[in-house]
């Protein structure tokens, strides 16, 4: 067991948890400096829980919205039974394994847990829907990066089950490779939207998820017209670029209701918080997951239309009357597994690698930080949009 590893460790300390909540109200990302995250420069990587497990050394590891929620003490208590403390965050990981660059598919399903027979979703390849997230040979944890037994990407060493590993094709550089996991989430959501030819779509939010979802729609199920709501100018520009040949317009979030009315040539009803399009787009993908974005999604989606929620909502208050009155279907989209595309079953990760390469999503990695600058990194990630950035990652390559 080699010593001298570094990791950022998320600990179970209620007092610090409270401090993070207070700080996060002051400044987005401000929780980083006082939150339940501690740097350990004398970190012991986890023991291998079974003979198949292997040690890997992270190269790049992204910071995701769910990580920020945890660091800021804003995670839903829903997660309590499916995480185990303390854990090392980091589930968007490109790493070295015996001289080979690998990506990890972080979901900890039946295979990694050595559970036989596998649960129905795992047997069907729908890894994200595993029903045994708290069982088996490792501690509870929905993914690597939320599980005590595995370590995580925000460190110099962690462990993985071979079923989680994908070799990185030579043509993908590290920055591109670290985008594969978030791209897989986004494309899983985009395909869940089931856009048929001739249907219109809206994407709310143009951070990493929104931009990758736009690229996925354009690549596999191009809508007849696409509307994007994005707070920041660079996000609107990237949205239009990634939409490629799809007729697209990108507007500020406050303009989304009027813009979707224009797009669909529909009528408008109500005013203020109750203003909505009488018809609307066929499907809306909400990549934000706040009360505001969900409200907007329900206001711009036509009766019997679909809303797919990719952004993690947490505890949210939303008037669901439109869901009922307009018979809108709302579904979530979490991680990935297997997609059916043109009658074929394909691993989401395989599609994601293709998408990252073809849409050039590596350019969305805006900045990388060493683990020693965790606070700066987390603040940058939390304020990425307003600072013209998209994806922030930790870079541990110099540690080798």
């Amino acid at each position: 067991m080699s010593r001298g590893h570094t990791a950022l460790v998320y600990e179970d300390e209620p007092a610090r948890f409270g401090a993070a909540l207070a700080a996060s109200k002051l400044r987005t990302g401000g929780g980083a400096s006082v939150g339940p995250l501690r740097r350990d420069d004398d970190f012991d990587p986890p023991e291998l829980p079974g003979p198949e497990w292997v040690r890997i050394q992270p190269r790049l590891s992204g910071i995701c919205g769910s990580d920020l929620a945890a660091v800021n003490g804003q995670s839903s208590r829903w997660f309590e039974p499916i995480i185990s403390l303390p854990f090392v965050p980091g589930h968007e990981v490109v790493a070295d394994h015996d001289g080979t660059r690998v990506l990890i598919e972080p979901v900890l399903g039946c295979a990694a847990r050595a559970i036989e027979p596998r649960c129905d979703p795992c047997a069907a390849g729908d890894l994200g829907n595993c029903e045994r997230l708290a069982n088996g040979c490792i501690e509870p944890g929905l993914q690597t990066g939320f599980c005590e037994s595995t370590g995580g990407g925000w460190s110099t060493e962690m462990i993985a089950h071979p079923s989680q590993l994908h070799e990185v094709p030579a043509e993908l550089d590290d920055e591109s490779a670290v985008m594969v996991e978030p791209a897989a989430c986004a494309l899983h959501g985009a395909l869940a939207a089931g856009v048929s030819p001739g249907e219109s779509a809206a994407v709310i939010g143009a951070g990493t998820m929104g931009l990758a979802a736009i690229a996925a729609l354009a690549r596999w199920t191009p809508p007849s017209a696409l509307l994007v709501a994005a707070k920041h100018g660079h996000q609107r520009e990237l949205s239009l670029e990634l939409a490629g040949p799809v007729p697209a317009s990108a507007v500020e979030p406050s303009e989304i209701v009027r813009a979707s009315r224009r797009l669909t040539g529909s009528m408008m009803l109500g005013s203020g918080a109750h203003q909505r399009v009488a018809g609307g787009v066929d499907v809306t993908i909400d990549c934000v997951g706040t009360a505001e974005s969900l409200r907007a999604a329900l206001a711009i989606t036509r009766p019997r239309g679909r809303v797919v929620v990719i952004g993690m909502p947490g505890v949210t208050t939303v008037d669901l009357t439109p869901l009922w009155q307009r018979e809108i279907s709302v579904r979530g989209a979490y991680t990935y597994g297997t997609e059916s595309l043109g009658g074929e079953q394909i691993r989401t990760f395989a599609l994601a690698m293709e998408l990252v390469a073809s849409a050039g999503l590596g350019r969305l990695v805006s900045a990388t930080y060493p683990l020693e600058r965790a606070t700066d990194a987390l603040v940058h990630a939390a304020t990425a949009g307003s600072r013209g950035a998209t994806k922030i990652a930790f870079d541990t390559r110099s540690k080798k």
Partner: protein
Amino acid sequence: MHHGEQFRLEKLPADRSRIIYPPEPLEPIEDPDAAIREALESPIDSEPLRALLHAGMKLTIAFDDISLPLPPMRRPDIRQRVIEAVLDLAAEAGVDDVHLIAALALHRRMTEDELRHAVGDRVYDALAPRGQLYNHDAEDPDALVVLGETRHGEEVQISRRAAESDLVVYVNINLVAMDGGWKSTATGLSGYQALRHHHNPATMKKSKSFMDRHSSELHSSNWRQGEVLRNSGVKVFQIETTVNNDIYGDGPMQVLAKREWEWNLADRATFMAARAGLDRMSPPARRKVMHGWRAPYGLTSVQAGEVEAVHEVTTENVYRQQLVEVEGQTDVVLFGLPYISPYNVDSIMNPILVHCLGLGYFFNMYRGKPLVREGGVVIMSHPTAPEFNPVHHPSYIDFFEEVLVETTDPVEMEQRFEKRYADDEWYRHLYRTGNAYHGVHPFYMWYWGAHALDHVGGVIVVGGDPGTVRRLGYRPATTMADALEMASDVVGPRPSITYFKNPPLMMADVK
């Protein structure tokens, strides 16, 4: 200097600046009602109105809408005086099939209050309850007819009621030289199908200016449509009126009618107090005060009869009040834009209307050549807030959010966006049932500035919201000094500067 709903006082470099002031108000006609009766009895190139009226006929009286005059007129409105005189004659002749139509083309419908203000309570109460007084509806397919095409292939469309009437009497207020003539009927009582033939960038670029009928392609097109109307048997008896430029009267703003160098201490104090008072008010209160102002105006002429002959005389009367001789063009022209334009009476002057008032109206207030030289700079003073009245200008909001972020080029927006806005069901609904301008109207407002956009080297807005100003394709400046500095970058150092002190309205006759 006008600055939206406020005022600014600016210093200009003394050695190379000139200020062009509007002429003094003309003496008004003392007995307007007598003058109106006289015009109806002895019309130009026409039998007296009395002789054209007979029992059993269909009579339609159309009148200019809320866009005229600016600011609105104190009661009784000239329209009321004229319409009452016409209705008296009609009653004497035993005419009872009379319709009164507000000829608003694609403007917003007038409210009951506004209609009452224009035609008077007596006329309103007599006709409106019986459905004989109403707003023109350019989107009612049953209420419009296409009468044919001009020799240039322009469709001619007009209110069915007007087309089927034995006589159409049109009642104008010719505030500026652009108003009246065949534009009254060919535009005011028409619809998008016909209007698009002259309300477009190509026509606007060829109208130099549209305040000078004989150099205005906009008018040539309307005149061609008028020819088709006449040949189709639509009989028009045109009544045109002109008013003087007494907009401030004895009101709190009367000091603005004076030339600054004539201001005495009391005038300065009055101005300062008025400005401070306005600055202290909340924006809604300020808006209410400004829009509540009703100008005293005096009638300076009334002429009736054959459309074209009448219009020639009217134009002379407008010029008599408004034309100012100006020696040569200028490098930089300054406009202080007020709170009101023809399209925001009792409403908000949104950024698109700022463009229209500055580059559409003020820039075009010339005969001969533009006041500012080719490649020169226009500096406008206005807050240019990104504010819209959602009831009156719904499609303007979309235009601002969708079209202007893509392009400020009139030709490009016409090709890419105009038709969708013109055909949008929602705008159509709001135009027909609410008080909204037609969906296509913001495009027309932008086209109004097409000639200016071709001509000038740059537009700078002083004291405007910077983001909004940039979206309009202009450059924002905080102070007049900054603006003049920025202008020098375009036209060279020490440019000649002309402050064109509109309003009251005037026209530059540039030699």
